[in-house]
C-alpha cells in the first residue's frame, strides 16, 4: 500500500474544516489552517499533496495564497481545490492557478471526488 496523501485544509470556519475532514475518506493525513498566512507556512512545512482553499480567509485572502503558491518553486505543482461562495467566476479562479473548484454549499461527495482526482494526478 502506498503512503497516505496529505491534504491541507484552509478555512476560517472550524465547523467547515471538520465537515471537509469528515467528507473525505479516512485515507488522508490532514493539516488545517484558519487563515492565509498560516496556510502558506503550513504548506511549505508539510508539503501537501492537495490543498483545499477557501477564498475568504483572514490576514491573507485565498486568491493571494493561490498566487503565492503558484510562485513557489517547491509548491507550484500542488493541486489546489478552491471553495468559493460564488463571488468569483470559474474563469478567474482557474486562471489564478486552481486545479478545481467547488461552490458553497458543497456536496461532500463532489468534494471527495475532486480531492481524489487531484491526489492521483
Amino acid at each position, binding site marked *: 500500500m502506498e503512503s497516505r496523501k496529505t491534504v491541507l485544509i484552509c478555512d476560517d470556519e472550524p465547523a467547515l474544516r471538520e465537515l471537509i475532514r469528515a467528507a473525505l475518506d479516512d485515507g488522508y493525513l490532514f493539516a488545517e489552517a484558519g487563515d492565509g498566512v498560516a496556510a502558506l507556512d503550513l504548506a511549505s512545512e508539510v508539503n501537501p499533496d492537495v490543498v483545499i482553499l477557501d477564498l475568504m480567509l*483572514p*490576514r491573507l485572502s485565498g486568491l493571494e495564497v493561490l498566487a503565492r503558491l503558484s510562485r513557489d518553486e517547491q509548491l507550484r505543482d500542488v493541486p489546489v481545490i478552491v471553495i468559493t461562495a460564488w463571488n468569483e467566476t470559474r474563469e478567474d479562479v482557474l486562471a489564478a492557478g486552481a486545479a478545481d473548484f467547488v461552490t*458553497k*454549499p458543497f456536496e461532500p461527495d463532489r468534494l471527495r471526488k475532486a480531492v481524489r482526482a487531484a491526489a492521483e494526478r
Partner: protein
Amino acid sequence: MSRPPVSLQTRLITASAVLALLVIGVFVALIFAVSATRTATREETRSRRITTSAIRLEKLVVDVQNGVRGYAITGNARFLEPYKAAVRALPGQQDEFEALASGQPRQRKRAHELNAMILDYVTYFADPVLQFTNRQAAKLASSDEGQRQADDIRKQFGKFIRAEDKLSESRARAADAKSRHAIELAVAGLAGSTVLILLFGLYLSRSIARPVREAADGASLLAAGDLSLRLSERGPGEVGELTRSFNEMAGRLEETRVELEEQNAQLRESERLKSDLVNTVSHELRTPLSGVLGFTKLLLSRDFDSETRRHYLGIIDAQARRLAELIDDFLDMRRIEEGRFERAKELVDMVTLLREEAQLYSQQSPKHQLAVEVGPKPLPVMGNPNRLRQVIGNLISNAIKYSPQGGIVEISAEAENGSVRVEIRDEGMGIPPSQQPQIFTKFFRGDAAASGITGTGLGLAVSRDIVESHGGRIGFTSAEGEGTTFFVELPGANGRGGEQGNSPEQS
C-alpha cells in the same frame, strides 16, 4: 461703487440728448450767420439805392440852379428847358428819396431837412422865374443868396452821402462780425460734437460692447463646461446687472453640479455597499449553510457512532442558529429602512441583562475573558428587553470579533445624571480614524471582510436605531492598535419603581 446706480438706458438717452442739443445749437448758429449776411447785403443794397437817389436829386437841384443861372446871364429861353424838366421831376424824386432814407432816424431827419431846403430854394428862387419868366427874377434866383442856398443844399447832400456811406460801412462790419462769430461758434460746436461722439462711442464700446463680448465668451465657456468662470461685475446699470446675473447663474450651476456630483458619489457609494452586501450575504449565508447541508448529507449517507452523530448534530444546530441570526439582522435592516421599530414599554434591569449576555458570550471564545463590573443595585430603564439585549449582545460580539488575539472584554454600567451608562471595552485592533465616521453606516464593514471577520455590517446600524428609539445615544472612543470602547446611554427609570426590578405587569 457707492454711487446710486443710474440705468444704462438713462445714460444713453441723456448722452444722445446732449449731442442732439449741441448739433441743434450748431445749426442755429449757422442759420444766424447766414441771415446776418443776408441782412447786411440787403442793407448795403438799400444804402446804394439811397445814395443813388440822393445823387439823382442833387443833379436835379444842380439842373435847376444851372437853368436859372444860364437864363439869368444869357436871357436865352433855351436854358429854361432842362430847368423845367428838373422842376417837374423834383417832387417824385423827393418822395422817393425821403421814403428810402426813412429806415434810419438821423438820415430820415437829414433827408427831410434837405427836402425842405430844396422846396424852400425852388419856391423862393426858382418858381418866380418859372411864373414870370423874366430875367429879373432869374437874376434874383442866381444872386448871392440863391447861390448860397444852392451851395448849402449841395453841402448838405455831401454830408448825407458820407453819413450813408459810413452807416453802410459800419452795418457791413457789424454783419461781418456777427457772421464770423456765428461761424466760429458753429465750428467749435461741430468740433465739440465730434469729440463727444467719439467719447460716446468709446464709452459704448468700453461699457457695453466689451462686457457683452465678455459675457458672450463666458457663456460659451460655460456651455463648454467651465462652471468656475466669473465675469468682472463692473459696468453701468443693465450691463452690471447682466454680469451679476451671469455670475449668479454660473454660481448656481456650479453649486448644482457639485451637489449632483456629491449625490452621484453617494449613490455610487451606496451601490458599492449594496454590491458588497450581496457578496457578504452570499458568503455569510453559504458558510453556515454548507455546514448544515454537508453534515446532514453525511449523516444521511453514512453510519456514525452515536457520539459522532451527536457532535455533528450540534454543529448543524449551531450553524442553523447562525443562519437564523443573519436573517434577523436582515429583517432588522428592513425595519430600519422602513423606519419602524416596535418599542415595548417594560422595565428592564440593565445589570441583569449585562450579566446574562456576558455569560452567553463567554462560552463562545476561550481566548477572551469577559469582566462584568457592575454595582449591587439594579439599573432599570424602560424599553424592549429583546431589543436592548440585541444591542448589548452585538457590542460584546463585536468586542470579541475585533480583538482576534484575545484579551479582556470589560463590561461596566453605572447610573449617571438620571441615565444609565453602559461601557464595553476591548483590547483589540481599534478603528482607524478614517473609518470612524462610517462605523454606524449600514453595510459598512471597514477592513473586516479582508481580515476575515464575519458580519453583515448591520449590527451597529441596527443598534443605533434601537438605542435612539429608546431616547438614548450610542458612541465610541477608539485608538488604532489599542482597542475600542463603546458606550450606550439610556434614560434611567428609577423614578418609576425601578427598585422593584423586572416587573412586566407594570408595563
